[in-house]
């Protein structure tokens, strides 16, 4: 599904190149649950953002299914992104001015899905995640775990093939964290959604099939 070849990322600041990622070669198959681990500043999030097409590599090739992402233009990349990728963040990133329902609905609006269909899809997800009662609340009225649930529901609403989770449990207590991890595991196993997560925690990593370690921008096998 994803093939990274010699991906390198650096920032140039006053003629000094700061490398964040160096010669990353990585293959991820459809249906995999993979963890990227490593200390702060190792380049975990940057790698995730490149895979998620929010960022571009300075050098190297990126194949997503059959598409050469590195040579696509902005518009093509956005379209590819829309149809395949859902993001989950450590700090949830729900839109504060919107209710849970509206937050979950928003990606569908951008995909121009019809109203009746939208209602069905959102209702289904609310039901599955057991947050029907919370649908009219605003993010600041929810606990962290509930917010992350809503955020995951929002990521899933467009039925992405790939979910990218940047420390999804980082802000949660251990009980909530475990619940979220079990939910992700279930998604991976029952629906075959490919998941890539970034985490510091060995315990959270244990939910996944495979773990890679990043150190100073290099993969340590």
């Amino acid at each position, binding site marked *: 599904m994803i093939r990274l070849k010699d991906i390198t990322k650096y920032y140039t600041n006053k003629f000094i190149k700061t490398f964040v990622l160096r010669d990353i070669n990585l293959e991820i198959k459809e249906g995999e649950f993979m963890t990227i681990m490593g200390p702060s500043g190792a380049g975990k999030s940057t790698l995730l953002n490149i895979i998620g097409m*929010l960022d571009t590599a300075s050098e190297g090739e990126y194949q997503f299914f059959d598409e050469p992402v590195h040579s696509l233009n902005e518009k093509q990349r956005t379209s590819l992104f829309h149809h395949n990728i859902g993001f989950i963040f450590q700090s949830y990133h729900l839109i504060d*001015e919107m209710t849970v329902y509206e937050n979950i609905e928003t990606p569908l609006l*951008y995909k121009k899905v019809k109203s009746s269909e939208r209602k069905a899809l959102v209702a289904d997800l609310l039901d599955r995640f057991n947050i029907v009662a919370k649908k009219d609340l605003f993010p600041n009225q929810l606990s962290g775990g509930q917010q992350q649930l809503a955020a995951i529901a929002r990521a899933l609403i467009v039925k992405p093939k790939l979910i990218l989770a940047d420390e999804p449990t980082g802000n949660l207590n251990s009980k909530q964290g475990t619940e979220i991890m079990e939910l992700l595991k279930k998604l991976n196993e029952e629906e075959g959604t490919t998941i890539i997560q970034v985490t510091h925690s060995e315990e959270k990593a244990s939910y996944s099939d495979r773990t890679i370690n990043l150190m100073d921008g290099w993969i340590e096998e």
Partner: protein
Amino acid sequence: MMFRNNLKIAYRNIIRNKVYSFINISGLAIGIASALLIMLWVEDEISFDQFNENNNKIYRLVSDWKKWDWNGFPGTPEPLGPAIKSSLPEIDNFFRIAEFDRAVFKYNDKVFYEKRGVIVDHSLFSIFSFRFKSGNPKAAFNNPDGLVISESLARKYFGNKEPLGKFIKVNDKLKMVSGVFYDMPSNSHLQFDFALPFKFISKFANIATGWNAFNFTTYVLLNPDNYRNLTKVSEKMTNIGKSNECPQVKSGVIFRLQPLSEVHLDGSGGETNYLVIGSKSNVYIFSIIAIFIFLIACINYMNLSTIKSMNRAKEVGIRKTLGAKKKQLIWQFLGESILMSFIAIIFSVIIAKLTLPLFNDLIGKNLSIDFISLKFFCKLISIILFTGLIAGSYPALYLSSFNTIKILKKELQIRTSAVSFRKILVIFQFSLSIALIFVTIIVYQQINYSKEMKLGYNKENLIYIPIVENLKNKCEVMKNKLLSNPLIKGVSAHSYNFLTSAQRAAGFRWEEMDESRKKSLDLIFSGIDYNFLMMMNIKLVEGRYFLKEDSIKKDGVFLNEAAVKDMNLKSPVGKWISLGKWKKTIIGVVKDIHFRSSRTNVEPRIYYLKDYSKNASGIILIRINGTKTSEAISLIKKEWNKINASSPFEYAFINDSYRNLYKAEIQIGTIFNSFSILAIFISCLGLFGLSKFSAEQRKKEIGIRKVLGASITGIIQNISKEFLILIIIANIIALPVALYAMKKWLQNFAYHVDLTIWPFLLSGILALLIALLTVSWQAIKAATANPVDSLRCE
């Protein structure tokens, strides 16, 4: 769907950020309301006379005379109209019009002064689109005792009764109503309530006719088939004047055709009772003010939205990861600003509606807003869209261009380019406000200067009353009665109200006149009672004052210095001066007196003795005891009522009337004043928002500084400095521009204030102080906050 969703978010944002929304909406609402009102006025001004069906074929004849700076003087000789109609095929029709002095109307027990009267040819009613309600114009103007009145005048005197054929006393002469016309539309530059037939002008008006008296305004209806260029027609008319031996034309007057569309905004002819004159420069000036205020309000919106973008940045980032395209985000934010301007415009319409009476007072008009017309609706929609786009475009583009990763990683800083752009906008805003303050100060200075100008005569405690009705033959009685009372210090007379008008004649000759002299001597005539110069405290340069005996001999005239200079006359006393058969001896020269407004230079003037014992006209001037004003007035009233049977008593102070000469300037001054206050208010609203944001954003920094031992004043200075520098730059930009504009404006006045450094300092310091007050409010709040609270909230 998307739209509804965005609308909802926009609404929630407005509610959540109450202070910012309030600043944005109230600023925009005030700005739009001001612009609406001003544009209402401008629209009215430029719509004048367009209702006339012959609009494009009507011209006013004006006279140009380079030598005397006549540029579009609307006076023409009385025989000109008939002469050009009979000999020029280009002229289809014409009418002449002259002012009829205010008159007393008496019908049964109803007695009023009627001010707006004219003497006019009946063809007015076929050239202009004024219609008769009863009677027909030709017949109505065919009777020397006929009187044509307006519908509302008819209602005033006759109620619902048929006015046609009714008899009414005008200045005690019986007139018969021979026609009634519908009231003129308020945007007609010709406005009068009653008209007398021009055909019989000599019967009821003492106005000189003939080719040498430019006392009448002539309008013509051109035949568009018979001419190709206006200049040719004008030349032909001038030639007709020449062949008829018109002295003024022979010495340089050129007749010119002025299109009807230009008449209303042409102020060069001065005021008469039937003309509504606007000012072209005011139309420009007010349009500019409207645009200024509107821009200032839009800038608030741009600035506040951009800084608020920090709080919206996260939302933008999330939306992008959820699949929003840039275009969709731009539309979202544009939609928000359009919603904001929609709310603002609702308020602005309410504000405009509520303040319209006030505005009408200010401009001296009676405008109304037609709230349910399609035109008004379209105007509102276009203002909403325009404001939304103008104010929203920058924030929309700025917000939608955020880098997703940086936002989500909270790395986003407001870019330096955005900072400087915002600063430029603040500078621009304050430049406009400071310029307006500066202009206001100068306008007021000039008005004051004009009011306080040394006129050369003593205008204190000077009352004048018009010589009307029986007073015409009893001036002497009145004078003697008044002088017998100690309340009255002096009584004299002048042949017309010298503040508001001037009677002039040309073609004088005099002893030792240089025969090679080309230009004709044009003098203003002042017919005075013998003691006028003394009573007015007008200083002699040469010769002696008039004595009572001179009135019996009826000889002797005075010249002012300007006249002597123009005539190039050495030792004028004892020499003669003549105009046709009229020949007098010069017995003295007096100082130049500013009888009229400071806009014009003192013109050459001749004072001659006028007989006030019988059939007099003009005004009686009465110097009273200044400490007993009301007693003096009631004394004059008592005497008036003894003499005059029907005319209601009236009087005016020269001082007040003199001030009235500056009505236009005072009006501009008040308007500038009001709108510059609004401009600075809106600017400060914006500045308040910005400083509030700055203080919030720097809360943590200020907290740390305080923990490290910074003083409160130090912090206030720190925050305020950032904004005050902008105001100082705005000063530097605004003042030269405003200075240039005001220099031009002051050139309208022959006598004007010198520009000193004070208005600069004053407007600069004023803006700085107001800004400081606005900013320090937030700065003090931030500086006195408990650092523990501000540091914990992170």
